[in-house]
């Protein structure tokens, strides 16, 4: 299968070129997985034809959290403090509901200091794409263990890790995430398709991207290294994102080998079975798969779970369609009569 969006084109649907999606030059280490992710976010948004001004970026602290600076220079960005990215996004999401939020975090940022917020932003189903650039290490502080570091991993200055890793996809699933996926920086096509799907998903979409830290945690045996990933990756599907306008045309379509998932905006995610048939709308299936891959130590990737939420938090608060941050003063200050009523009631 080979469809138009994956080909290099000069201009997208809305007439923008890939440069319009670029950020500042990266200052991360050459080869860092985080750079690949930044590139694929650009590619995905370019291919989707999203207006950069309609996106806002949020991050915490870490090499990973720097990366929003390296894509979408035309989007607003807020690089906050360590672990609190979800809270910034939560507050901002009510300001202009048309804006799509992307949060970038690291494994230290989300699985350690930010664990509580990670859980609760999911529980609130804040409409955003939540990407964890998971390298199993603290990059920016020069190579300490994170909560996703492999058991038994050895790092300079730190010794040996004696604690089992947390699986952030499981964590997301348990807390109610309705879009849970994992990608691997060594597999860009899948990553990009997942990003596109996440982007049109209506609610929080959590993507745990294994993103090797070439400087501190890329030994061949390390679970988050390129080598280990390449050798142990086991994608559950071959994923193709089909924008809503487009006809589905699948060359080697065979009965039973594909699943179609209809996304919120009408686009379709075409999931081609790889080893076994996998139903991404079953939470139990996802739990079982992830528990198994955790215990047997292989790297499952793909879309683990997807479900449509009944209502977004913005609906729950019953906000108008106009951006709240643009309402003129007279629509946010009650009138004198209202105050007089209040006063009267307190007399």
């Amino acid at each position, binding site marked *: 299968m080979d469809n138009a969006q994956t080909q290099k084109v000069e201009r997208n649907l809305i007439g923008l070129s890939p440069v319009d999606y670029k950020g*500042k030059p990266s200052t991360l280490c050459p080869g860092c997985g985080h750079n690949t992710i930044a590139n694929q976010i650009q590619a995905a948004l370019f291919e989707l034809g999203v*207006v*950069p*001004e*309609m996106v*806002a970026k*949020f991050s915490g602290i870490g090499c990973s959290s720097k990366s*929003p*600076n390296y894509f979408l*220079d*035309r*989007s*607003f*960005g*807020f*690089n*906050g*403090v360590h672990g*609190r990215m*979800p*809270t*910034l*996004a*939560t*507050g*901002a*999401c*009510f*300001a*202009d509901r*048309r*804006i799509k939020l992307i949060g970038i975090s690291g494994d230290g940022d989300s699985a350690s200091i930010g664990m*509580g*917020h990670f*859980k*609760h932003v999911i529980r609130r189903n804040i409409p955003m794409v939540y990407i964890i650039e998971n390298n199993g290490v603290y990059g920016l502080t020069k190579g300490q263990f994170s909560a996703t570091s492999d058991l038994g991993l050895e790092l300079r200055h730190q010794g040996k890790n004696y604690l089992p890793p947390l699986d952030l996809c499981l964590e997301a699933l348990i807390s109610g995430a309705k879009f849970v996926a994992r990608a691997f920086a060594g597999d860009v096509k899948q990553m990009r398709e997942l990003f596109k799907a996440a982007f049109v998903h209506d609610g929080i979409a959590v993507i745990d991207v294994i993103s090797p830290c070439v400087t501190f945690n890329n030994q061949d045996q390390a679970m988050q290294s390129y080598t280990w990933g390449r050798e142990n990756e086991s994608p559950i599907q071959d994923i193709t994102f089909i924008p809503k306008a487009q006809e589905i045309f699948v060359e080697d379509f065979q009965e039973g080998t594909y699943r179609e998932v209809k996304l919120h905006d009408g686009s379709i995610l075409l999931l081609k079975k790889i080893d076994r048939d996998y139903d991404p709308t079953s939470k139990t299936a996802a739990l079982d798969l992830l528990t198994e891959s955790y215990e047997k130590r292989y790297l499952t990737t793909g879309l683990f779970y997807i479900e449509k939420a009944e209502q977004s938090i913005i609906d729950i*608060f*019953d*906000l*108008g*369609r*106009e*951006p*709240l*941050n*643009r*309402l003129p*003063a*007279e*629509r*946010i*200050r*009650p009138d*004198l009569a*209202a*105050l007089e009523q*209040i*006063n009267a009631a*307190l*007399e």
Partner: protein
Amino acid sequence: MTHPEKDELIALPQQVNDFCMTVCTVNGSGSATSNNVLYHALFHMGIPTSGKNIFPSNIKGLPTWFVIRVSEKGYLGRVPYDDILVAMNPETFLDDLTYLPEGGVIFYADHIRLPENPRPDLIFYPMPIRRLVKEAEVPRNLREYMENMAYVGIVGEVLGINMESLLYALKRHFGNKATALESNLKMVKTGYDWAAANIVKRDRYSVKPLPPMKDCILTDGNNAAALGSLFGGVEFCAWYPITPASSLVESMIEHNPKLRKDPVTGKNTCVILQVEDELAAAGCAIGAGWAGLRAMTATSGPGLSLMTENVGLAYFTETPIVIWDVQRVGPSTGLPTRTAQGDLTFVYFLGHGDINHIILLPGSVNECFEFGWKALDLAEHYQTPIFVLSDLDLGMNQWITSKFAYPDRPIDRGKILWEEDLDRFGGQWGRYKDIDGDGIPYRTVMGNQNPAAAYFTRGTGHNEYGNYSEDPINWANMIRRIKKKLMNMCEVLPKPILRAKPGAKIGIIGWGSTDPALIEAQDMLEQAGVPVDYLRIRALPSCRDVHDFIAAHDHTYVLELNRDGQMCSILKLEVSECSEKLSSLTDIGGLPMTALWATEQVLAKEMERNG
């Protein structure tokens, strides 16, 4: 039990509209309603009254006191004694008795055992509470609650509270819940009638109606702050429950649906979000403030401590947020249900690195309303966190205050640029550029579609365009500009209020909820031959007026409810050339200040000072 002879006591002068009464109950028993009814009835009679609830950090079954002070002269601070006791709690009874002066009065539920040898200088009125409730055929589950309504009737009758005013107060409380109103009214009446028939008044305390208090309302500071914020156009409030700040946000939740529907679309215009902790509350407010919503949070000491890192982020990214700190006694969890003014130096220096903050200090319920909307204006105008320090006494107790005044100026959104505004700048705009020379840069917010609008906000070093910078000179310029921006503010903040006395050479300075005590103390001092001028500071950093006040007086005492004399310390910094003219007087036990304490302290220090 022997009662002292009636005529022994009659010698003391009558006290009309001037006494303090404490109702001693256990919490969770429903006494809050009864006490409020008593209190509102007094207010309805036009008598200046204050009501303070002194309650435990617990839900049910521990001692609680409700203190009503009645003062025709309008002195509404706490007093350190009780003229009248309404004793419903056997556990604290003996101790409660010790607060009564000679001639004091005790209404007590007659199932409470009196001491062996009761003080002969006191007047005891037994109340057959349980019998009255039984006779009233109250359902079993409501009995404990109704016992409280019974004393309302009895005490009301003996003190001379109008039945009409009691009815008014009951109506105010029960609104349109007709059956509840009826049964409560019945119980009050039963007590009232019983007292009229059975109690021979032997004490000297009573009330008389006064002309209605014009333009006054009765409410608590947290409700006022909530309303002030809603009238200030707050659009986002994230919070985490904590005493004594919870009721501020809960009042917002209550009023929000009515007050804040968009007149055009009928949709909501204010989001109130309970989040997972205070780190999140501050973070969410910052996210919202950054994105162009008028944003706030409310908390108390422990929560504030948790907001520290985020406050630094807001300060340095120049993101507007308002933080209400309804103070309670610290350090640590401290006394969660007691009042203090103990967070001032902490807030002043809150955050690692070089930092300085604006702090508003409301001293009345009305100011809670006013500073509610003003804080939002200041935050957006100056693009910085604005702290408002209230306290438990101000926030959770009922106060008489003048009616809320409609904001006298339009909402100030500060230097926000929208699509068309940016064009005006012709590409010259930089998020942190000091274009106007006032230290305040222009900002754009998320959603602005102008291709020049977006910038990358960060808590790390950044240059005028928001780009990352480790350049030493840039750093110094950036944080010096921020300081300048905020120092420029002093004169714009709420000015201190001066209450002068003729011939005063001595000054006293106070802030916040101690105002009634200090007003009274000032009068007491005058009577004691030591006239003092009283300045109430309403914001920090302090303005020129504060400096001039201190400079103009021989000596100035700073009185406050904390251990360390926190305002005094700050003044020693801000007005350091007058350091030696400042003395600190502090009281820290979790209760509101009393005028007596303040007076005695100043007099003692003056004696010392004058040799």
